[in-house]
């Protein structure tokens, strides 16, 4: 039982250690994306994604509470003048009023009289209490505002100002705002929008009144429905203008969300009474020539992107009344903290793909599945009113996923490259050893033969020697090439299983190498060794083989060149978060025994390559402070400190 726990703990520790190193680039990516989002570099894309997802939603049924009376091109042509004279508007009011609508909203500016019939309009305004008209309270670029029509009580006036995003599109609805005192004679300089006036009047007729919010006292509330205010950093917004009381617009989806009739339809009595009675009637211009259009990408339509102002008003009113009466969701966002947690979680998923799967193809597959899932989750959340970050999450997921895949490919190629280099090294070494050994001997024999006749015995010994040297070369090449995948063959009867703990393998290598018949080992008096666990991070078999070769080479160097060595220290252990393999001897240093510089160079080259692969360092130096001796050392970072004595 304890062992199982220990095993699990070990596994967790190991996993944590791997994550700490491997996941670092992943975390950097997450931090980078969060930083970009924080600086607002992603809001353009996030809003596009919102528009797109909103458009994707299934069609909602027609909102029967609202009727739009759109004055279209045909109406204007029939009347023959534009703007529409006040008399026609007044007549429309009278006709509509005869059907008893709950509230009529006039989404047409009437600050100036447009004769004929101005007096009739003023009269209609003063008589009809369920009539609401628009004004413009926020100065436009040229500093103009538009006054409400004369003869209306302040309660019957709402502003029609819209807040556009930096891309010129409308996603928010302004419900109320303070205006500067000097631009208005009103002492109470807080103004309500046309939208909220209509919704308030309609809902009041249903017995629901406008109150201050409970959760957020500055928000507006109808019954239990609170209209969430937009804050500067709501959802995908960063540093948005949150002047006044704004809410996000949850457009009603579908090709025909509202009933639209023309002025002529009303005056000719072609509109069913039920469409008007107790309903909200919006009067506006639906003629492109009147230029009362708004940019929105969230609404599907024949002419996507362009929506008549009156339709936008209908959407804004509809989202409030539907939320209050039908429980249709309003758009909500998470607090910034949760949004970043959300991004981080998906970033982690992206990183773990590389940990769970090892083949690039599987990672890509996993990535695709994750992306689809993420989009699905975001879409589903949007259906119930939550606007959650999708662009940054997709970014961290994809970057981490593909980044790791790319890294794997890179690593694979590096392995391949180092294998090719190894082969090259063998070829070079073979050439060197043929050149340094047999060829030299042969040259020597030829020289001697030229000088004086050689006895058959001497010639035989020399040829034997040559034969031996040639075979040695063959043997060593064979040894290099015939390395099996998971074992290392030291001699016909000593085969080491590379899957064993590294320190044990190295101990065997040490014993084997010191038993070799090398000249300098003969003077050895004292051997001091340390072989401790160094498998703190998983090493590939190739790396383990490299370590074995390194130790063997280092010990052989002592045996070949450390003349007069009496003591050798071999250390394999962890030192201050680094794994170390070190061989120290007190013989004559490498510098003083020349002539083998070339072969040593090869060994050094291989050791350096190994150090590079392990992100470690290799050094060989003469110990000057102790009169003679050489130290040969390979060290690389041990990821986690894990000591055998702990358990």
């Amino acid at each position, binding site marked *: 039982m304890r062992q199982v726990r220990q095993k699990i703990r070990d596994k967790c520790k190991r996993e944590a250690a791997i994550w700490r190193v491997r996941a670092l680039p992943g975390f950097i990516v997450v931090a980078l994306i969060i930083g970009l989002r924080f600086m607002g570099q992603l809001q353009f894309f996030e809003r596009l994604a919102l528009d797109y997802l909103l458009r994707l939603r299934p069609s909602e049924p027609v909102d029967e509470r609202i009727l739009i009376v759109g004055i279209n091109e045909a109406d204007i042509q029939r009347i023959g003048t534009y703007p529409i004279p006040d008399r026609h508007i007044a007549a429309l009011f009278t006709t509509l009023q005869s059907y008893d609508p709950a509230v009529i909203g006039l989404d047409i500016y009437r600050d100036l009289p447009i004769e004929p019939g101005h007096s009739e309009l003023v009269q209609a305004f003063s008589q009809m209490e369920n009539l609401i008209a628009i004004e413009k309270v926020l100065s436009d670029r040229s500093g103009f505002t538009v006054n409400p029509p004369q003869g209306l009580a302040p309660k019957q006036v709402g502003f029609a100002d819209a807040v556009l995003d930096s891309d010129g599109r409308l996603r928010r609805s302004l419900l109320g705002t303070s205006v500067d005192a000097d631009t208005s004679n009103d002492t109470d300089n807080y103004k309500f929008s046309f939208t909220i006036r209509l919704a308030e009047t309609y809902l009041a007729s249903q017995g629901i009144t406008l109150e201050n919010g409970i959760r957020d006292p500055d928000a507006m509330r109808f019954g239990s429905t609170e209209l969430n205010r937009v804050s500067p950093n709501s959802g995908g917004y960063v540093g948005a203008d949150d002047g006044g009381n704004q809410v996000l617009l949850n457009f009603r989806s579908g090709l025909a969300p509202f009933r639209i009739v023309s002025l002529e339809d009303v005056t000719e009595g072609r509109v069913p009474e039920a469409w008007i009675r107790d309903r909200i009637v919006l009067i506006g211009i639906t003629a492109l020539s009147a230029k009362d259009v708004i940019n929105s990408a969230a609404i599907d339509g024949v002419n996507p992107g362009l929506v008549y102002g009156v339709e936008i008003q209908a959407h804004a009113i509809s989202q409030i009344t539907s939320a209050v009466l039908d429980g249709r969701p309003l758009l909500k966002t998470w607090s910034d903290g949760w949004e970043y947690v959300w991004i981080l979680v998906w970033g982690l998923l992206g990183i773990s793909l590389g940990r769970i799967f090892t083949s690039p193809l599987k990672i890509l597959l996993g990535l695709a599945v994750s992306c689809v899932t993420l989009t699905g989750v975001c879409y589903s959340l949007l259906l119930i009113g939550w606007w959650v970050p999708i662009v940054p999450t997709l970014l961290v997921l994809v970057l981490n996923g593909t980044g790791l895949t790319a890294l794997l490919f890179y690593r694979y190629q590096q392995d391949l490259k180092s294998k090719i280099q190894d082969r090259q090294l063998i070829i070079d070494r073979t050439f060197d050893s043929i050149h340094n050994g047999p060829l030299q001997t042969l040259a020597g024999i030829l020289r001697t033969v030229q000088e004086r006749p050689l006895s058959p015995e001497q010639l035989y010994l020399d040829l034997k020697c040559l034969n031996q040297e040639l075979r040695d070369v063959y043997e060593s090449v064979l040894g290099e090439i015939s390395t099996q995948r998971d074992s290392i063959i030291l001699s016909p009867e000593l085969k080491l299983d590379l899957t064993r703990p590294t320190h044990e393998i190295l101990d065997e290598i040490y*014993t084997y190498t*010191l*038993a070799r018949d090398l000249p300098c080992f003969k003077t050895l*008096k*004292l*051997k001091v060794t*340390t072989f401790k666990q160094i498998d703190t991070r998983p090493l590939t078999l190739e790396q383990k083989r490299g370590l074995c070769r390194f130790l063997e080479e280092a010990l052989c160097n002592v045996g070949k060149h450390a003349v007069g060595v009496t003591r050798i*220290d071999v250390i394999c252990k962890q030192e201050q978060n680094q794994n170390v393999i070190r061989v120290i001897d007190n013989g004559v240093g490498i510098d003083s025994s020349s002539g083998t510089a070339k072969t040593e160079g090869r060994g050094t080259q291989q050791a350096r390559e190994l150090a590079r692969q392990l992100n470690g360092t290799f050094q060989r130096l003469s110990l000057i402070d102790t009169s003679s001796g050489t130290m040969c050392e390979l060290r690389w970072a041990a990821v986690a400190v894990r000591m055998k*004595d702990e358990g």
Partner: protein
Amino acid sequence: MNQSIQAMPKILVIDDHESVLTGTVSGLRQQYPQAEIVTAQTAEGAQQQIERTQPDLVMVDLSIPQAAVESAQTNTGIELLKTLMQQYPTLNIVVQSAYAKALARLKHEINNHEGGFTVADKSLPLKEMLARVEWALQGLVYTPKEMRTGLEMKHEWLEVLKLAFQEGLQDKAIAERMQVGERTVRHYWTQLQDALSVYPQPGKNIRIQTEMRAREEGLID
């Protein structure tokens, strides 16, 4: 605990000769009259006995058969020892063999073995054999010199020598300094004493002997 082991240890003797078993057991019986002594004649039998009786000490001949019908081979004994040291790291072991050098193959395992490990040639007189048994029971290590090539030490052992003889520390303080258990320090002592060929001698302090040998070899100044 230790006392009870000393007085009535559980001992397993492994040898393929009936007469040798009888002789060895009666010799052991003399020293440890209350001991529980069991025997086995093959490597397989030995493994079963060990599982059943959990002995404190195993006396093993290297030349034994794997199973009843097979012939005796030194290799079988070596493999058995290897398995035992892996499975029972604290088991005390006495190897009864004339050919101790074959044990050189197990050097790594013996170094890491935490229990006593002594080698007693069959030609030794009873008294000496019993002394080796006693050493093994005390957790000491005795390997014949032929098994080693020159002086082989571990850095930890040198550290123990330095702390003990140059700084005059006791085992407890050494353990603290080296951040290991006191038991580990005692294990280091037995291993390094074996490497220096220092063994208990009546009337002589083994630590002093160790210090003298270490100075002789130049391990401490």
